[in-house]
């Protein structure tokens, strides 16, 4: 295989894994899969890009701004689009439609404010997107940093689940009522997880921007690719997200070369469907509880 292909696949896969981790963080205590996650990623990229391009702020400030703003927006989403429908029925699926509508609202507003043109974003120095040759492949220092940062973040998120708060999140995911009886408040965990899930989404956008440009088109495609990654890895598993991200990134890179770039999405979906048909709960997921 062409070494460049592997580089491209792993780099794109890291981005998908980042998006998938955002999904997972939200999903664990709430069993809600946020349909607006792609738009939160997109918004993170746009805020960071604008902060750097318009106000000439340094990368770190732009990134911090994006994380804070999108985290807050995640919290707002939880308050207006998720908590009310979950209060009505904790096991219903009305949130599919409410988070989807939230996504449409954000996408439209961002489109109105920023317009359709992509904004180029420079990586934070000393990193650059200039490529050099490494083991026969063309890579940039930014790509290496991105892949490393994703692995570090996955490790960080997994280690959070070994803290007491993290165990409480897992407890809510496993048995909500038993968690209630142990003094764990699912509502407050749900708020926190939307805040963090939003911030992680923004981080994914900020990290993606130097490679993909910041544009409104990021939202829908990252929603779907992030979903495919989370589903293949097993919803809730961050290790699974990382590995599935690489798999999907490579499949996509391969499809672009062998077929044509227009068939990337079809290839991704074919892989996802095959995995789900063989292992409905993904490579690292657990089956849901029995109903009787």
């Amino acid at each position, binding site marked *: 295989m062409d070494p460049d292909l592997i580089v491209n696949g792993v780099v794109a896969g890291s981005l998908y894994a980042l998006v998938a981790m955002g999904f997972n963080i939200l999903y664990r205590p709430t069993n809600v*899969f946020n*349909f607006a996650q792609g738009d939160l990623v997109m918004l993170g990229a746009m805020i960071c890009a604008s902060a750097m391009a318009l106000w000439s702020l340094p990368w770190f400030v732009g990134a911090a701004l994006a994380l804070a703003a999108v985290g807050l927006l995640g919290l707002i989403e939880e308050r*207006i*689009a998720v908590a*009310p*429908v979950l209060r009505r029925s904790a096991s219903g*699926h*009305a949130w*599919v*439609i*409410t988070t*989807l*509508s*939230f*996504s*449409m*609202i954000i*996408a*439209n*507003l961002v*489109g*109105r404010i920023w317009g359709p043109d992509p904004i180029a974003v420079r990586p934070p120095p000393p990193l650059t997107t200039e490529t050099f040759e490494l083991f026969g492949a063309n890579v940039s220092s930014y790509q290496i940093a991105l892949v490393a940062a994703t692995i570090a973040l996955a490790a960080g998120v997994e280690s959070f689940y070994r803290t007491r708060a993290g165990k409480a999140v897992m407890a809510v995911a496993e048995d909500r009522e038993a968690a209630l009886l142990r003094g764990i408040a699912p509502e407050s965990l749900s708020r926190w997880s939307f805040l963090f899930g939003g911030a992680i989404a923004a981080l994914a956008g900020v990290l993606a921007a130097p490679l993909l440009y910041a544009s409104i088109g990021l939202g*829908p*495609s990252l*929603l*779907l690719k992030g*979903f*495919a990654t989370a*589903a293949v890895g097993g919803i809730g598993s961050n290790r699974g997200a990382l590995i599935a991200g690489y798999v999907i990134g490579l499949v996509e890179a391969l499809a672009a070369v062998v077929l*044509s770039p*227009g*068939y990337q*999405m*079809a290839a*991704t*979906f074919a892989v*996802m*469907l095959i995995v*789900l*048909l063989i292992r*409905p*709960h993904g490579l690292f997921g657990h089956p*849901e509880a*029995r*109903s*009787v």
Partner: protein
Amino acid sequence: MASTLRALLEWPHLRRGLLIGLCVVLYVAPLAVGTEYRLFIATQMGVYILVAIGLNLLNGYGGQVSLGHGALVAIGAYAAALTMVDLHWSFWPAALLAMVMAAGVGLLMALPAFRLSTWYFALITLGFAEVIAGLLTEWRALTHGFAGVVGIPAPKAFGYAFTARDLYWFVLTLVVLTLVGMANLLNSRFGRALVAVRDNPVAATASGVSLVRIKIFAFVLSAAVAGLAGALFAVQKTVITPEDFPADFSVFFLLVIVLGGSGRLAGPVVGALVFFLVPELLTALQSWRLLIYGGALLLLMLYAPHGLVGAAEGLWKKLRARLGLPNIPPTPVAADAPIRAIDGAQLSVRDVSKRFGGVAALASVDLDVAPGVTHAIVGPNGSGKTTLLNMISGYYRVDQGAIAVEGRRTENLAPHAIARAGVGRTFQTPRLLPHLSVLENVLLGAFTAEKHSWLSAALALPAARREQQASLAEALRYLEFVGLRERAMELAGELPHGQQRLAEIARALVGRPKLLMLDEPAAGLSLAELDRLGELIAAIRGIGATVVIVEHHLELVADICSRVTALERGAVLASGAPQDVFSDQAVVSAYMGAHVRIGEKGA
């Protein structure tokens, strides 16, 4: 004023009269006011309504959110257009192909949904829509890319080509037929099964409904309707390009039904009408479209989850209540017939074991129940009684051992297959469908007793209607039997606990079970209801069914059961006649805490 209004509201044919009047207006209108533009818009609206009716079946009744129906319309449109233009097919086979192709893709989209939660389906359909949109432009050899398909001819019948007005009438007729068929279907065993699969899958399987089959049915039918609408879309527009199917096309249909009322028959029609009544507004605000869609969906889901039709129903009920009219429809009438006898089945459980993690729930349990016998399983809480029922009815996998009903091995069958083999049951917590009437809940139990196909149900063929009438008579008779006929038309969720249990027993009986299993039927019943339950079980035994009853209420057990098996910690402690088992010292000390003596009352 109020009295005229009341007289009007009381008119039994009010609804039908209004609908027929509306149809007449719609058929005659083009002769009077049929400009070309209006016809075009009205036909287009008809096409959209068709898609929305199909989506409503899937979303409103099946509970699945599809974000890919726009893509299914595109598939139907391209299938029809390409075969008509490139291959010179006539409209009719092209429309059939459109339906088949959309149904096939719909099935493919649905495959992973059978084993996964609802929201996977939403995302998978969204992804499919994206993939299809990509293919429309990429696969130029087939789709002509951005250029699209040009010069799609009008449908012809007997050499006569449809004018725009004919096409309007044709689409209108299809909409009316689809609505009538859908109403028939939803009112049949298929409609009830669909709602049961959405609201309470366990109740559905216990009544013999296969979750996978009913879901396939809903996906495929819904997709086929979208495909048909696509074919109509193509011949109406005469030119189709990828831009006719924008990314938010699917969301548009979802919005239409949520706006009109998801899960309401008229919802798609009302939703589409309202949408087209404000076209001016929408063109002015074209660039805000997504925001408006999103905001409207969010507000509707939060404040009017049943849409405009749901809100109107609420007002209608208030109006009737204010006028002193009842909101509970009259119980339908059905021919009276005696309750038919049932051939009780023999049950044999051999050496069955089950473990959950570190806990042995059942250890090598044997149980033999002769045909027509009422057999109780007793034992302290946690001794494995309900686990045993769940193994017999297929909800838990059998780790080891054999279970046979009438000599036929059932231990590896799915729950719905065991129900079809004649095993009915009730649950510790009654599993009714709270938003359906008591009668509809009981009719769900007749799912396997009725044999007619979905098509004959949709067309209301005489054979299907005969079966439905027979089930209705049977259901009403069993409701009478359990003393609930008076409340047949009330919502099941509003019955008190004890009556919900009785309704659940009636549901199991309508399936004419050869083996009926009752899980703690006496728990939480009042004294009067308890007496009724005793008589009821005696009457069920009288019909001939074999009854297995898990029960704590030992006096009831002693009164009505001829055999008793006592379990403790997953093993059989004693088995035999009630007086023998209840005087067994081991049973007394295990179960009663040595204090309450049973059998004093003569058993």
